[in-house]
């Protein structure tokens, strides 16, 4: 059976993805992500091994222990407002990347921007540069 340290869980869903018995149930609404670990009798520790936060441990099967649940508010992109990640996941990125990589060339704190907006920004900047380059060439 799985014991969860909710204070460590990132809400990344690795455990749910690797669980061969579908004992880790994920539900996601627009603004909220929840993970529910069913009582599990399998002799398997894939979820423990695959947890990036080491939030899971194995414990002996016990029917009296309630099934753990963790819920996360999803963070809104600061440009488009779409909900794209859990706060602990973003904090984890902020803690592993050196400070100089956390702002781009124009000072944007891109970790708080969703991947869709990041791609759009990249395309718009490349276009701006090309247009600038062309206007420099023309007499």
């Amino acid at each position, binding site marked *: 059976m799985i014991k969860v340290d909710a204070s460590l869980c990132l809400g990344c869903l690795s455990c749910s993805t*690797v669980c061969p018995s579908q004992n880790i149930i994920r539900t996601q609404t627009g603004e909220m992500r929840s993970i529910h670990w069913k009582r599990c009798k399998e002799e398997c520790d894939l979820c423990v091994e695959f947890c990036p936060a080491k939030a899971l441990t194995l414990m002996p099967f016990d029917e009296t222990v309630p099934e753990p649940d963790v819920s996360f508010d999803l963070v809104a992109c600061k440009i488009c407002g779409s909900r794209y990640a859990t706060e602990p996941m973003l904090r984890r990125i902020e803690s592993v*990347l050196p400070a100089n990589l956390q702002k781009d060339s124009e000072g944007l704190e891109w970790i708080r921007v969703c991947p869709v907006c990041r791609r759009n920004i990249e395309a718009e900047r490349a276009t701006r540069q090309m247009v600038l380059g062309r206007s420099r060439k023309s007499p």
Partner: protein
Amino acid sequence: MPVYIDISRCIGCRSCEVACQRVHGGSGHINVHFVGDSASVPIFCHHCEEASCTMACFSGALHKEGERTAFDVEKCTGCGLCQLACPFGVVRANKIAHKCDLCEGLAEEPTCVTTCPANALSTDFELASRRARSRAARAAAHGGKR
């Protein structure tokens, strides 16, 4: 050797997308973005020297192999941290990570490069500046007109 782009040449035909999908079993790693009426810009992995995705990947699935940011599918746990760590939003995670592998083991050259009919994509970093120099040389030979 990463793929470089000269977007002034891109005609927005999306051949690169189709080629990438063909080689990678239907799931491609390059997307052409259209910026108003001004330009079409293929967006794909830069294979960054200091690759944020490799720093965020705790299992070692994403790692540097020379210039390439390589991906070992066997080690991927599907946590999605790489997707959030990519400044350009070009690493996708859907149960496992998906990103440009430069067609390593699938083709001699990245397929997007060999397919692009406009020669906008290249593995030669110097190509764009060589083209500019030869344009300038031609212009000089024709009395300054390009």
